[in-house]
């Protein structure tokens, strides 16, 4: 799993490539300070082919921590498999989910 960061409309977009699962979650959480600070971010999941319950738990934790600090996290580009995970666990209720990272960033910046 690799993680990249870029700025878009003053927002950080964190892009993950690979699978977000039990064995890669610890590395992901350490990959970027943007995941734990109070700033809003977009997480681009276009490159994520597989997400398990640990990966989901880690995204939920990021959302909780951001919101406790007044920030937010938006998700972009979930493939069919990822959408299914968000549906059957009802986790879609916790996230704004966008078709692409740019529009997620634009919407967030305009709020």
């Amino acid at each position, binding site marked *: 799993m690799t993680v990249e960061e870029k700025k878009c409309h003053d927002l950080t977009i964190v892009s993950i490539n690979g699978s977000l699962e*039990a064995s890669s979650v610890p590395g992901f959480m350490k990959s970027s300070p943007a995941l734990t600070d109070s700033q809003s971010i977009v997480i681009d999941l276009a490159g994520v082919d597989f997400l398990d319950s640990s990966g989901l*738990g880690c995204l939920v934790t990021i959302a909780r921590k951001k919101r406790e600090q007044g920030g937010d996290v938006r998700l972009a580009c979930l493939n069919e498999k990822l959408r299914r995970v968000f549906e*059957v666990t009802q*986790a879609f209720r*916790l996230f704004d989910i966008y078709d692409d990272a740019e529009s997620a960033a634009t919407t967030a910046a305009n709020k």
Partner: protein
Amino acid sequence: MDTFITMSFPSEISYARLASNAASMVAEIFSRQVGIWEKRQEFCHAFELSVAEAFSNSVRNAANPETDGQIIICFSSDQNELMVSVRDTNPAFDPDIPAPDILSYPDRGYGLLLIRQLMDQVLYSRENDMNLLSMIKKAG
């Protein structure tokens, strides 16, 4: 149902992806064989994710990570359904543990929920001091 593939792995998280990929490939072969090729993606994902969850649960909840407990995965099928079972030497557990309350932002507890939702039937039993979690999905 006849068991046609058996796999035995060390109880280590590094083998979770191997086990779940294998499950996805078995499901793909089954999808072709029984003629449900058009819904293979959903079918394969159910097996891939369920085995990933069951396997990582087995690793995480090992009573004694030092001793050499193996995780044993079997695939069985007939024309109507594919079953995967995961066996470990862990303490017994409750497979019907309720789903967590999503609105309280739980950081865990999604594993068995995902398995129950993606599979058609989940059976749990305790045999010879081992947990046996069997997960079945129907072709139809």
